[in-house]
């Protein structure tokens, strides 16, 4: 089979919002669909699953068109073999957790006993062996989400569509469920699309990231490529970098605001510059010495961030800086405080826009 399991170009018009996303997923590949709220991720999954008809474009699985408005092709959702975890679970309220999971296998022709056995296995795998007889309303949020995941996986779908399948899980369960999902996806020779807001989930599970903003793909590539060279604010935030755009002239990038950043990378023309918040040093006075990039800034806010504190700065350059609690105390970093920020040219990365 040479056709990729999933090849789609999703064009959907939905009351003012337009989605236009090409997607190709290779056999066994897991693609993470990332993007801010309202970017169109759920819409994309719904279009793939056949719950939202395309305006144009196509959905092709293993070379067969499932939806192609131009060619008047349409295969209904129930004949697509797509497994879907919905963002709001949509567990059948009248069925027990077990029967929710057994629903798909039953539809594949298994008898009640066999379907329930398979369902029980899946519940076990997501750590809910003891909750088989509960109704959805008697489950906690995280329990319900795992049942939804088990329900989608139990049909052994050709294409898996996971809409934030781990969002409601606690840290530990999340790790375990992620590992379980990872195992499953590794064996899976179909296509899998994972929507998530958690970069850790994306990095742990996906082979490739597709970033969608306002209905369009803004960046695409493997984790290393995307994390090294973010191209939008959203991606920069996601991977934890300060991102700026400007015109580069060798080692200097002139930003639109007028400030010029020095970098050890040499590029020419339109370029991005990034540096991590940890690379920003804060000083009470203008620092002397090596850092090539220094500017006066005002503290806009301070928040805990892991063991350190993250300071939001405004000024010539809006940036986030990670500093130790000791530094915060010493510099009296309260909102409104004036400081000097410094970043070494060697800590920045510049690349063409």
């Amino acid at each position: 089979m040479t056709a990729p399991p999933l090849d789609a170009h999703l064009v959907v018009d939905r009351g003012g919002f337009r989605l236009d996303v090409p997607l190709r997923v290779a056999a066994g590949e897991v693609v993470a669909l990332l993007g801010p709220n309202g970017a169109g991720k759920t819409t994309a999954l719904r279009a793939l699953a056949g719950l939202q008809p395309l305006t144009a474009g196509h959905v092709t699985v293993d070379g067969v068109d499932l939806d192609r408005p131009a060619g008047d092709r349409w295969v209904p959702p129930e004949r697509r073999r797509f497994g879907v975890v919905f963002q709001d679970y949509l567990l059948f309220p009248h069925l027990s957790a077990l029967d929710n999971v057994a629903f798909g296998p039953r539809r594949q022709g298994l008898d009640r006993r066999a379907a329930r056995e398979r369902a029980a296995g899946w519940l076990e795998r997501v750590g809910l062996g003891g909750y088989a007889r509960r109704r959805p309303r008697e489950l906690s949020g995280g329990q319900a989400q795992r049942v939804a995941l088990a329900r989608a996986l139990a049909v052994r779908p050709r294409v898996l569509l996971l809409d934030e399948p781990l969002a409601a899980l606690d840290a530990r369960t999340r790790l375990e469920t992620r590992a379980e999902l990872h195992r499953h996806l590794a064996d899976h020779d179909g296509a899998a699309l994972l929507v998530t807001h958690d970069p850790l989930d994306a990095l742990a599970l996906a082979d490739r990231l597709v970033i969608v903003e306002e209905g369009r793909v803004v960046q695409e590539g493997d984790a290393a490529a995307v994390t090294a060279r973010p191209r939008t604010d959203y991606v920069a935030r996601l991977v934890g970098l300060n991102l700026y755009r400007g015109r580069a002239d060798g080692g200097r990038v002139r930003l639109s605001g007028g400030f010029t950043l020095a970098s050890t990378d040499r590029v020419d023309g339109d370029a991005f510059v990034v540096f991590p918040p940890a690379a920003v040093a804060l000083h009470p006075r203008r620092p002397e010495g090596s850092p090539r990039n220094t500017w006066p800034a005002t503290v806009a806010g301070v928040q805990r961030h892991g063991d350190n504190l993250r300071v939001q700065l405004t000024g010539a350059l809006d940036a986030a800086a990670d500093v130790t609690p000791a530094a915060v105390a010493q510099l009296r970093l309260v909102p409104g405080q004036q400081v000097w920020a410094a970043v070494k040219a060697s800590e920045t990365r510049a690349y063409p826009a």
Partner: protein
Amino acid sequence: MTVPADAPPRRRRPGQRVPVALAVPAALGLLFLVLPLIGLLARTPWDSLPQRLTAPGVLTALRLSVQSATLATLLCLALGVPLAWLLARAQFPGRRIVRALVTVPLVLPPVVGGLALLLVFGRRGLLGQWLDTTFGVTLPFTTTGVVLAEAFVAMPFLVIAVEGALRGADSRYEEAATTLGAGRWTTFTQVTLPLIAPGVAAGAVLCWARALGEFGATITFAGNYPGRTQTMPLAVYLALETDLEAAIVLSLILLTVSVAILAGLRDRWIGHP
């Protein structure tokens, strides 16, 4: 399950494929409801239609029917929706009995229902006597009596339909409303009612139609005075005495008007929740 590769892709638009197992009984059901109408139409003396339509009393009876059925429906909504709410949402002793009592007028033959109304609201009735002597109000043989008789017969339809809708509704939205400071009444009007609007609409349609077609209780309790209590079904009944065709024509007039009203209202009213 079919693998997509095996399945020849079909024409577009979801929502249009209707499974045979549903389409066939639905078509049969529709046929069963519509065929008799065709039978009636085949028997209708179309040439005499205009003069019958303009016959004295027909329009009066029609107007009276629509008015009193509408008033009865409003009365049923005002009393029946709270009753349905009580049955579905409140816990109180004897709820089972109350629920059973609500179904009484459903199974009481309407003429007996009318008789029962006479026994209570008649001039010599339990309450009627008192109403008469205290307020000088008599209900039987008045248009108000028609409305009461129709409401009595039609209310259970509303109550049961609305109660069904309430039980099917997700009560967690009501919980959310209370945390926002909404008392039970506000929750009821602002959240519950809008959520079950389709159910209430369905109940109101049933109630209105039942009231419009009501005959036995009306003629027994309110009598059959042209212009005052003679609704279309009563006129049809009298026409049947002498003139089958006239009765059919009258029925068709009633039918056309009410179906037109219902069709006009429902598509707007029920909408798409």
